[in-house]
Structures are given as structure tokens and as C-alpha cells.
């Protein structure tokens, strides 16, 4: 009986995101009836992949009651190294490049994981440190030079420009395919493997997880490693999406947008619950808002403010729902 209630409420939370999404679409459409045309839909669809790929890793981390604010710098570092490899080794296969980006990210993530799982440094502190350190490495490795657009191979740019499905001027890009692959892997991990289930149990009750013999450290380490790997892959996708990699801007500030997408997608900031479709919905909402802001003629400088407000609204809704649930169960008992 009560579990039905809880289920209804959790769908209600995602329903809230959908309502918010529809409201944004409606507002933009009222202003400009051409909002839902191919050009804008393509922009939205191109906004999602980077967010979703990094978001999957971030969700795993948040499920364990952690946070990784270094993902933007990880993206930048993997992006700049792989970009330089493309520049210096013409003819390097793009999939090999993606694999290298993934591996670099995994190493950076593993370092975070080591700090948090074994040295017991609080996640926010550890990753705040590496946020700065990894960005520093970006400048050192690149000597401050950006990888220019003519150094990015056409095969990589093709991931953004083309894709397997084209319906009326709307392209489902290869970037989006990467995002779908990352989402499927994450969903499989979470639902079908013991490690995935351990992630939920650690976030749901860390003390109990320890007492019940869950390998908390190992799982924590794995989670940050995966998070880094996805961010590293996203660095390569960034090069494809924007056609260049600038050491100062590649991935800078991206961590906040990613965390926003994950939380808006219904992942509990205190760990233990969250879903892949929810996070994808969060990415879709932020992508749509971004494009809608342009359509509504709102200056780009306002974007951060709007993101911030959306995060706050989502969190307030979240805690409101929880209070309400608490009251209901009190009445019920």
C-alpha cells in the first residue's frame, strides 16, 4: 500500500520535470512558432550527448552519496591530449582516439577514487582539489595553445554532423549514439550487476552496507573511475562537437551543468535513488532551456542564473515532496 504511494510519488517527481519541460517548450513556442523546427531540434539533440555521457558517471557517484566536481577538468585534459594526438599523428583512427580519451579519464577518475576511498578525503574536497590540478595539467600539456579546427579530423567532426537516422531535417547524430551507449551500459550496471546494486546500498545506508560486508571502498573506487572514464570520453566528443579544443574553455564549468542535470533528473542528492531515464530527462530539460533562451532572446549571460534557479526549484520540489511523504506516512501509521 505504502510502496504504491512511494512509487506514485517518484513518478510524480519525474512528472514534475516533464511539466517543467513542457512549460519551457510552450513559452518558447508562444514567442516563436518556429521553435519546434528542425534547426532548433537539432541544437537540442546536440546539447544532450556531452551532458548525458558525463551525467551517467556523475549519477553513479551521487548515488553513493558522493560528488565529483572535477569532471569538467577531466574532460578538458582528455580532450586536449587526444586533440594534440590527432594534430601530431594525422590518420589516427577516431575510435582509437575515443578509447585513449576514455582511458585518460579512467586514470584521472581512479586517482579521485583513491583519494576518497582509501585516504578518506571527503568527495567535495578531493575533487575540488583535482578540479584545479587537472585544469593546471591542461595548460601544462598544451603549453596554453589550443588545438585548432583544421587539426581535428573530419571523421571526428562527422560524429556531430551525421548520424544513423535522419527524419525530415532532424539528425540523430553519432554523438547521440555514444550517449545512448553510455546510458545503456550504466543502466545495465545498475540493474543487472552486484556492483550496481552495491552502489544503491552504499548510498541508501552506508553504515549498514559496511556491516553487511559490502566492499564499500572497492565500489567507491570503481564508481569514481567510471565517472572519470565517461568524462574522458566526453572530452573527445567535445572536440567533435565544437571542432576545436581550447585549454581555457574546454569543459570549464561543465561540472555544475552536469550535476544540475543529474539532480533535476530525480537523483537523490543524499544517495540511494536515481534512474537513467530520469537523468536523460534532466539533460533534455537543460538542453531545451539552453536553446529556448536563445529563441526567447534572453542574453547568453543569463544562462547560468537560469540554470541555478532551475536547480533550486528542483531541489525545493524534492524536499517538499519528501516532507509531504513523511506527513502522509505519519497519518497512515
Amino acid at each position: 500500500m505504502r510502496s504504491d504511494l512511494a512509487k506514485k510519488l517518484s513518478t510524480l517527481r519525474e512528472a514534475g520535470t516533464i511539466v517543467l519541460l513542457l512549460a519551457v517548450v510552450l513559452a518558447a513556442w508562444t514567442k516563436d512558432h518556429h521553435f519546434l523546427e528542425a534547426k532548433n531540434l537539432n541544437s537540442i539533440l546536440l546539447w544532450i550527448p556531452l551532458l548525458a555521457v558525463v551525467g551517467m558517471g556523475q549519477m553513479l557517484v551521487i548515488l553513493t552519496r558522493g560528488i565529483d566536481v572535477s569532471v569538467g577538468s577531466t574532460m578538458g585534459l582528455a580532450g586536449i591530449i587526444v586533440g594534440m594526438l590527432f594534430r601530431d599523428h594525422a590518420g589516427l583512427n577516431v575510435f582509437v582516439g575515443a578509447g585513449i580519451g576514455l582511458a585518460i579519464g579512467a586514470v584521472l577518475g581512479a586517482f579521485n577514487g583513491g583519494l576518497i576511498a582509501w585516504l578518506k578525503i571527503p568527495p567535495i574536497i578531493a575533487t575540488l582539489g583535482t578540479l584545479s590540478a587537472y585544469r593546471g595539467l591542461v595548460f601544462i600539456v598544451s603549453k596554453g595553445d589550443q588545438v585548432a579546427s583544421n587539426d581535428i579530423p573530419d571523421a571526428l567532426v562527422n560524429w556531430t554532423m551525421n548520424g544513423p537516422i535522419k527524419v525530415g531535417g532532424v539528425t540523430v547524430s553519432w554523438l547521440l549514439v555514444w550517449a545512448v551507449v553510455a546510458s545503456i551500459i550504466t543502466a545495465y550496471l545498475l540493474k543487472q550487476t552486484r556492483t550496481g546494486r552495491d552502489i544503491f546500498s552504499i548510498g541508501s545506508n552506508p553504515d549498514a552496507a559496511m556491516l553487511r560486508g559490502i566492499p564499500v571502498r572497492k565500489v567507491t573506487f570503481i564508481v569514481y573511475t567510471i565517472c572519470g572514464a565517461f568524462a574522458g570520453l566526453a572530452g573527445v566528443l567535445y572536440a567533435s562537437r565544437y571542432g576545436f579544443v581550447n585549454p581555457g574553455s574546454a569543459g570549464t564549468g561543465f561540472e555544475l551543468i552536469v550535476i544540475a542535470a543529474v539532480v533535476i533528473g530525480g537523483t537523490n542528492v543524499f544517495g540511494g535513488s536515481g534512474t537513467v531515464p530520469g537523468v536523460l530527462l534532466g539533460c533534455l530539460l537543460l538542453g531545451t532551456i539552453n536553446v529556448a533562451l536563445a529563441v526567447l532572446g534572453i542574453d547568453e549571460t543569463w544562462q547560468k542564473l537560469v540554470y541555478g534557479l532551475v536547480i533550486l526549484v528542483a531541489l525545493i520540489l524534492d524536499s517538499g515532496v519528501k516532507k509531504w511523504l513523511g506527513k502522509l506516512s505519519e497519518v497512515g501509521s
Partner: protein
Amino acid sequence: MRSWWWNVSLQDYAHTVNSAEPIVSARGIRMAFAGVEVLKGVDIDLFPGEVHGLIGENGAGKSTLGKLIAGIYRPTAGTISIGGVARSLGSPRQAMELGVALIHQEPLTFPDLDVAENIFVGRQPTKGMKRVDWAAMRTRAGELLSSLGVALDPKAKVSGLSVADQQMVELAAALSQDAKVLILDETTASLTPKEVAELFVIVRKLRDQGCAIAFVSHRLDEIFQICDRITVLRDGDKVGERLPSECGVPDIIRMMVGRELASERFTPAEHSQGKVMLELKGLCQGKIFSDVSFNVRKGEIVGMAGLVGAGRTDVARAIFGITHKTGGAVFIDGVEVNARNPQDAMKHGFALVPEDRQHHGLLMPISICENACLAVLRGMTKTALIDRKAIRARSQEYVGKLRIALRDVDQSVRDLSGGNQQKVVLSKWLMTEPKVLILDEPTRGVDVGAKAEVHRLMRELADGGLAILMISSDLQEVLTVSERILVLREGRLVRTFEPGEATQETIMLAATGQEAHAL
């Protein structure tokens, strides 16, 4: 008078007589926390097919003993043998692998996961490619639960379950790992009588299947209902082991409280006849406590006894405005007050020294004088800034009055001993110049010498005109310090002893609801 426990037939523990080898055998167990010894060399055996009750007052060491056997703590001395082999248990996981499981009072479950996964967490059944086999897991969970006779949906989320149901989930988890030894640590404390009865049906069933069960409790009636053997602990010592057939409730109570008399009494020769300062009329709070009426006079110390969970602290919190009453009235000095929050209560002349110094009484990292003046900081400013000189002077005054042993009022309060920390908390509240002082377990974790000092101080404060209400689980303390003694049981005021009327036994009988079996 016929008592219900006589009805327990001999066959019920016939199986204990022939049980040969104990599964768990602990010898000379000692345990100390931060230098305070809570177990002082205790022996215990748990036999298959037997429910072994561990009983004692609050702080006797019974829960600690259970936790040692379950590997949650490591004893400072002594050996624990499981299955005839001495073990060095390092973790609950290791104990579980040897078949020992502990069921907690507050279940350690995963609220976001469903019932089946809570049972199999970390050991989910898998099929090809190591995929979690959800169908098999739910089927097996269903089978386990129905073998226990529990009607729970394996797919239900645990966050919505009652405490009793969550305990069943923990029990099922233990059994899914072939637990042979179950330690029930105050498991019944948050259950309704009906839930307790249901739990006992299951406990008997498991016992008959050959499990060794340790039942940790301070509820005498339950001990006699379910146990085949009773071990009584007092202040970390094993006082004795009895078969329920050979003893009665009064014997056990005598063993629990001991015989020694209070060495020093702080009660005045004459009963205070001062004006009534605090009066409660029919105070209620939902299901937590109801119809609590009493008064405390100027210059009087009233003790409030009862078991943990009887609602004593809840009454204090409601008076002080931390929680809200649902009925009745509180009067201070004849005027009805309705404290909405602690600030409000302080304005009306209440002060509450909470039970938990570490969390509610003191800010550990900051200095003694800042802690002492915390409640009156508002009045100690000079042009909007805190007047540090005044703070130091004021603290110094109370350090003298309360005889706090320290180097310097600027030293961190963390460096003080328990007794002196408690005095800092006390001075914090005395600075608010209260009319009514409520003390919740004023000497918990304080050593014996400092205890007497705190008691002497309380007496002095009362003689100085304060009305004091003291909550304590330490019967000796209650008898030593209080004039009148109130006993709460299950949220009700069940007995008021006039000065000189109470003994440890009579208080215990009232607190456990066994008054019918008078000594």
C-alpha cells in the same frame, strides 16, 4: 498468588537439559570504552535450541556483550569460541560467516531497496554472465519470509515498512545465510505488544529448529515469557545465571539492582514545603506520553525514574518547547506557559540540561567561557560586539561557584573530564537564572567521585531556591538525590513515591509493571 510464568510447562525447556555443547562460549570477557570498563570478565554459553535471556539495568553491559559475540566490537580481553574453536572476531561479516547474526533494535536496512534485496544484499543470486537474477531472488525471499510466517511482499520498498517488519527482513537476511546463533538486541523495544507476540512465535520456531538465541532485554515479563535460561548482569559483572523455573521476578530484580545501600544521602532532613514552581496538569503528547501530572516545589529535587523509552526525556523536551504537547498544561510559578521553542521556555525561567553532553550540551571545539556564556550571549555585548572581558569574568564567577577544575577559561571544553564538562553545561544554564532546572541523566559517563560532587551541587542549588526535576536511570542516584520520586512507564506516570518511601526494588517493580509481585 498464581503467576503466569508458572504455566510454562517443563517440556518447554526439557530440550535444554540434554543439549550437550554450547555453540557460543565466551569466557572472561572484558570490554572498555575510552577507559571506562563496561564488562568486567563475563562468562556466557549459548546452547542450540535454547533462548538465553541477557537482562540488566540500563548500562549493565548486556547489549555490549551481544555486540561482542556478533563481532561488532572486539573485546579488550577474554575469548569467544564459536563451534568449539576460539575465534578472534574482527567484523560482523566474519561473525556472520560463522553463523552469528545480530538483530538490532533499530533495524539496519536499506530504505531505498526492496525487501528481497535487503535480504540478499551483497549476495544477490546470479545467472549466466553474473547477472542479478531478480526472479530467483524474489522467489527465494518469498520462501524465506513464508517459512518465517511473515506476510511481506518481496517487491515492497523497505522505506515504507514498520520497524517490526524491518526486523523480520533482517531476521530473514540472517537465516538466508544459515545463521545458527541469533542475538536479539532490545529487539522488542520499539514494537507493539501484538508485534512482540508475533516475534515470539518466530523465535520459538527458530529455537525448536535448533538455533541458539540470545535475547537482550530489560523487560522482565518478556524474559520470563521467552527465555529458557536467564543471565543477569549488573555494572559489567555477571551476577548469576538462573532457570526461569527456579526463580521469580523479585529474585531477578534483586539480582539486577543489587543490595548495597546508598552511601551518602543528599536529601534534606525535612521535606521542602516551598511554593509550587513547576506544575504539569494532564500533559499529553500523541502516543508518546499521556496524562502526566505532577509538581516540583521551590527548593525541591524531584527524581524521575523509568526504563529507557518510558517517555521521561520526551516529557522534559515537551516542557522545554523542543517538541509540542498535544494536551494538558504547564504552569511555572502559578502562571500557565506554552513554550513554543527553547528560547521561549528560557524566557519563562526553564533550563534543560540535556542527556547528551557531546551533541546537545556543548560545542566541543570552542572554549569553556564561550560555552558557559552561550545561552546569555545576547546580553553580553558592547556596541553590538561580544564583550569578551565580560564573558571571561562571568565564566570565572561560575567556575568558582561550581568548583570547575580547569587551567584557564579560554581552554577548549573538550579537554575537561566528563564531570567538569557537565558543570560547564550546568553553568551555562544557571547563567540564565532559571526558576526550574531540568536535568536529564546528569551524571552519565561521569566517574564516581565527580558524581557525588554533581549531586552535592544539585542540593546546593535547590537549597538556593531552585526547583529541580532530575531524570535518571541510575536508581542509586535517584534515591540519593531526590525527595519525591516519580516513575514513568510506557508514557504514563505510574507511581509517585513520597520522601523515604522508595527502594531500588520498589522503583524497579513500578518501572517494569511488576508491582503485583511485591517482595
